[in-house]
């Protein structure tokens, strides 16, 4: 991913000083540093921040909490990374979250059944089918986005705007404007269950990440996606089937969003077509940018996006637990975005390093 860095490294890999410099220049250095600073603040200001307890067969603690809550965002950010890498953007993520959540919740629902004289909730249709249907709906949404962007050549932001506006309407149509409550216990496992002492949602994210990382590293797919982002025309002329690739990327993004939607609705034990995943697309885009992936497409970093999602969740957690009014959260977030954008801008760097040049800017 950073071939020029590597070749530079080969030339003069003498002193450890150089090694440090290289490490600082690594694309992940900045997001990692931001996360470290944030955690350091937490360490000093929140007593017992890093304490992790083992209770009732699973781990408890602030760090676990942050990671658990960041799971849907991490998923959405993973999908968004690939879309952004192809110079696209998907602002329908929140709507897809609402759609998949409502589909699953409507199909599962929960009816009281007497089981050995004990009332129990049973799902309306087998849960696997309900989940498959929800994911199918999400993939359908992705196919729609992909069709508009890849086949019709609409601008990504406007193509996904259509689903963003209509999607929530469709989700409300499904639920008839009501909030659907789920009573079927096994479904909650997706959002708040524990496996080997760790939140189950974490395993989903880890699984998705590993599959994706393998696909990107061990096959040419990652290279193809990057080349489409760097120069779509050149990529097409070089024989890459850009349209099919872009189509796939949007489907993947929506599938991630659908999975995130399942997690969210399992976590809150209901589906709210109006508010589920509200502004999630913006947080996902923010996570991707924080992770060092440029919105202009091309090079991307999956690890970076995961770190970006963790930064956002840690920031939220810090703000809440410091007793700062949660309203400040948005202001802080926006300031962070401004700073990150500025730090990515070559013009800003040039201005900072050589002030004399700043006057020559138009």
């Amino acid at each position, binding site marked *: 991913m950073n071939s020029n860095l590597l070749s530079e490294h080969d030339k003069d890999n003498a002193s450890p000083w150089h090694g440090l410099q290289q490490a600082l220049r690594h694309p992940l250095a900045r997001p990692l540093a931001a996360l470290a600073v944030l955690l350091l603040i937490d360490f000093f200001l929140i007593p017992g921040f890093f304490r992790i307890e083992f209770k009732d067969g699973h781990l408890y603690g602030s760090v676990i909490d942050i990671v658990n809550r960041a799971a849907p965002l991490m998923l959405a950010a993973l999908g968004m990374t690939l879309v952004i890498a192809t110079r696209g*953007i998907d602002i329908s993520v929140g709507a897809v979250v609402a759609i998949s959540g409502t589909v699953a919740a409507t199909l599962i629902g929960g009816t009281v059944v007497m089981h050995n004289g004990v009332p129990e909730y049973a799902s309306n249709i087998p849960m696997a089918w309900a989940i498959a249907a929800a994911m199918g709906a999400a993939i359908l949404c992705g196919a729609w986005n992909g069709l*508009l962007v890849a086949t*019709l*050549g*609409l*601008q990504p*932001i*406007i*193509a996904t*705007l*259509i*689903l*963003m*506006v*209509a*999607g*929530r*309407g*469709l989700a*409300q*149509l499904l639920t*008839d*404007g009501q909030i659907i409550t789920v009573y079927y216990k096994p479904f909650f496992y997706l959002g708040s269950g524990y496996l080997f002492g760790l939140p189950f949602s974490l395993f989903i994210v880890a699984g998705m990440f590993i599959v994706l990382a393998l696909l990107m590293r061990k096959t040419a797919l990652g290279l193809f996606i990057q080349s489409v982002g760097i120069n779509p025309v050149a990529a097409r002329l070089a024989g890459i089937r850009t349209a099919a690739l872009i189509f796939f990327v949007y489907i993947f993004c929506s599938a991630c969003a659908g999975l995130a939607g399942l997690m969210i609705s399992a976590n809150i034990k209901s589906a709210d077509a109006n508010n589920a995943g509200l502004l999630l697309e*913006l947080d996902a*885009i923010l996570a991707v*940018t924080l992770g060092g992936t440029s*919105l*202009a497409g091309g090079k991307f970093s999956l690890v970076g996006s995961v770190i970006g999602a963790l930064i956002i969740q840690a920031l939220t957690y810090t703000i809440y637990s410091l007793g700062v*009014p949660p*309203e*400040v*959260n*948005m*202001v*802080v*977030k*926006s*300031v962070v*975005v*401004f700073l990150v*954008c*500025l730090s990515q*801008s*070559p*013009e*800003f760097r040039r201005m900072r390093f050589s002030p004399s040049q700043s006057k020559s*800017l*138009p």
Partner: protein
Amino acid sequence: MMNNSSSSLRLRASWGALLATPSFTSLVTVALLLLMFALGAFGYDGFFSLQVVLNLFIDNAFLLVIAIGMTFVILSGGIDLSVGSVLALTTMISAYLLHVWHWHPLLVIVCVLLLGGVFGAAMGMLIHFFKLQPFIVTLAGMFLARGLCYLISINSITIDDPLYVAMSQTRLEFGDAFISPSVVIAVLMLALAIYLAHFTRFGRAVYAIGGNEHSALLMGLPVGRTKIAVYAFSGFCAALAGVLFSFYMLSGYGLHAQGTELDAIAAVVIGGTLLTGGYGYVAGTLTGVLILGVIQTLIAFDGTLSSWWTKIFIGILLFVFCLAQRLMSLGAARAADANAGGNVVKPSAQVA
């Protein structure tokens, strides 16, 4: 006497010419607006009245003003996602200044309008000087403005200033129907915007930048100044819309006008402005806003359809118009290809 085949050929040619005319989508929009209105008039009692038409303006005056600002931004090839939250921030600041500091209402209005302009200009500067993407900068602006609202207060603040109340309750008689003063302000703004876009140097520069920023720079146009001015204008429009909105709601609230930026973008696109920039009419935006208004009115008149149908209809309309724009620009490119032997001309070139 003309023979049959040549007349059909001419007919096809003129039909093709009409299709290829850049203003075709705008004409379609107007036709669609009339069709939808006729549908309502035939379908529902009391739909066909002057007051229903004027209500469209009364209820959507603020959206019209916001969409006018958005039109300029989109014409210049950018996008402004912050307008909805700037509107909310304006209502919040006005309410706070009136309620807590007891400022004179006119001073408050001047202040918030300036603030909106400065907010927009600041974003424009970030976009221009640091070559940042408009999408992400205005997204951050959106967070910032909403966050600032909540910093002032998380609750709604009532406005009971006499001037605001008067502006809210005044009815300007218009035959046997009436309009509100906000409509007058919005329509004046529209006139000013049409003048700015089509009859001034600034307007021509906006179109040129939207058509091709690099060419505009090489032509010696003040690209930086114009871009910053466009975002400042959009911020100003959002603030003015905020003032109109506080006339309308008589309160300041951080949750006001959520998602308005999407409505505004939808109105601009439906109004026939190309999202890639460089082509469109400011007047088309009025049609776009009115179409959104008619959809809501139709749903309100029907009574059996729920509010979420509005979203679905807007989504469908957006899709249809994007598709039409896309097919047209493909057609135009092909026609230009055939005419000029490979020189692909964007429709924008004819205007810019």
